[in-house]
């Protein structure tokens, strides 16, 4: 009767009988916290694992995900074309540059968010779930119709938060709006361990003392991310970098693997620092 272990092992894949993929919305409320970058990198890392992944840019009117993935010149049709049946799904799906498992469904650039029919969006996401293991939906900022449309077809949520008062507040609000159905998990982005050490930035513990969400991982604020975004090559392609590896660890956790959430390393000493931080991090 050693069933407990096997049960836990099986829980991880999360794919029920008809083998529907998982539709995960990446959201934050606040803009500029790194939803798109996270979507691109998580998608890249999941595809590296051999999962079939489609990234859906739900930020209608402000197409970005294609840029981050370096696919901007290959986009011929977009989400609204598919919803309004001007293009088939196959025509609109853009294959990724670096993986045969990764696809992009781009947003419309010259249209309005409220042109999306929520019911149609829901139907589209379910048809994508039949073809892919992961449907990652890059949600627009805000909590209006664009948000609701992006969330409509999803069954899970990953919330992205930076260690800032405004970002935490917005995530708190978004999590309230999502309710329990989406079992939101947290990615903390743009952490600067040095600043945390000096008491100049909210720590992971500070943020999650408030949000109290399952932590997928923490991504450091690295210049590398800007450089790779400039080039249109997600950092997750470079697994040897600490941040690239962190995205892969997050992907492993999303896939249900029991690896610890990645934490950006603070420069040297850890235990001493923790004790030191008890007494205030030196200068304010």
């Amino acid at each position, binding site marked *: 009767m050693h069933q407990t272990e096997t049960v836990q092992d099986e829980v991880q894949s999360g794919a029920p009988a008809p083998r529907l993929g998982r539709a995960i919305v990446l959201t934050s409320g606040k803009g500029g916290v790194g939803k798109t970058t996270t979507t691109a990198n998580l998608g890249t890392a999941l595809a590296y694992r051999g999962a079939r992944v489609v990234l859906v840019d739900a930020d209608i009117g402000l197409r970005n995900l294609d840029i981050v993935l370096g696919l901007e010149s290959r986009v011929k049709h977009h989400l609204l074309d598919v919803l309004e049946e001007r293009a088939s799904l196959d025509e609109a799906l853009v294959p990724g540059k670096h993986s045969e498992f990764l696809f992009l469904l781009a947003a419309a650039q010259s249209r309005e968010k409220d042109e999306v029919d929520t019911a149609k969006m829901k139907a589209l996401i379910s048809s994508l779930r039949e073809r892919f293991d992961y449907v990652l939906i890059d949600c627009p900022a805000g909590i209006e119709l664009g948000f609701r449309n992006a969330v409509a077809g999803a069954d899970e949520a990953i919330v992205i938060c930076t260690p*800032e*008062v405004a970002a*935490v*507040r917005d995530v*708190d*609000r978004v999590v309230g709006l999502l309710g329990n159905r989406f079992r939101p998990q947290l990615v903390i982005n743009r952490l600067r361990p040095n*600043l*945390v050490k*000096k*008491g*100049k*930035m*909210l*720590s992971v513990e*500070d943020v999650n003392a*408030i949000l109290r969400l399952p932590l997928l991982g923490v991504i450091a604020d690295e210049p590398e991310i800007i450089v790779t975004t400039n080039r249109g090559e997600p950092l997750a392609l470079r697994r040897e970098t600490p941040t690239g590896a962190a995205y892969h660890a997050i992907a492993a956790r999303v896939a249900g693997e029991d690896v610890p959430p990645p934490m950006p390393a603070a420069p040297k000493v850890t235990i001493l620092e923790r004790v030191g*931080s*008890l*007494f*205030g*991090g*030196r*200068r*304010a």
Partner: protein
Amino acid sequence: MMDFLKRLFGQSGSSTTAKERLRLVLMTDHLELSPELIEAMKRDLVDVISRHVEVDRDKIEVNFERQDSALAMLANIPILSVSRPNGNPTLVPVETVQSPTAANVAQPPVRKRRRRAAKKAAATSAAPASAAAQ
């Protein structure tokens, strides 16, 4: 606890400020008191207090704070002068004004501030501000 120690050692980074601001802002968010309602409460508070002392309407601050398990409303109402129009001894018990929607809103801090205000009034004028005690 950590915060207490930090304060004790007189050192705290701006992250402490961030934490504190976050705590306050989320508390108000979760209260779901609309800004209009808070404004209305402020107005009513001031109206009542103005019956007895002259207050600075522009500098009134209303905040919410967690105290143990209860929530407290803190009103900071600067008093300009204690001269009252034809002194009315029947002071309205201030407690009646300070009940926002939630039942778990505790009153002590408000009462404290009030009492201090009343004391100030009593100290500077001969008027029977102590009537508040009744």
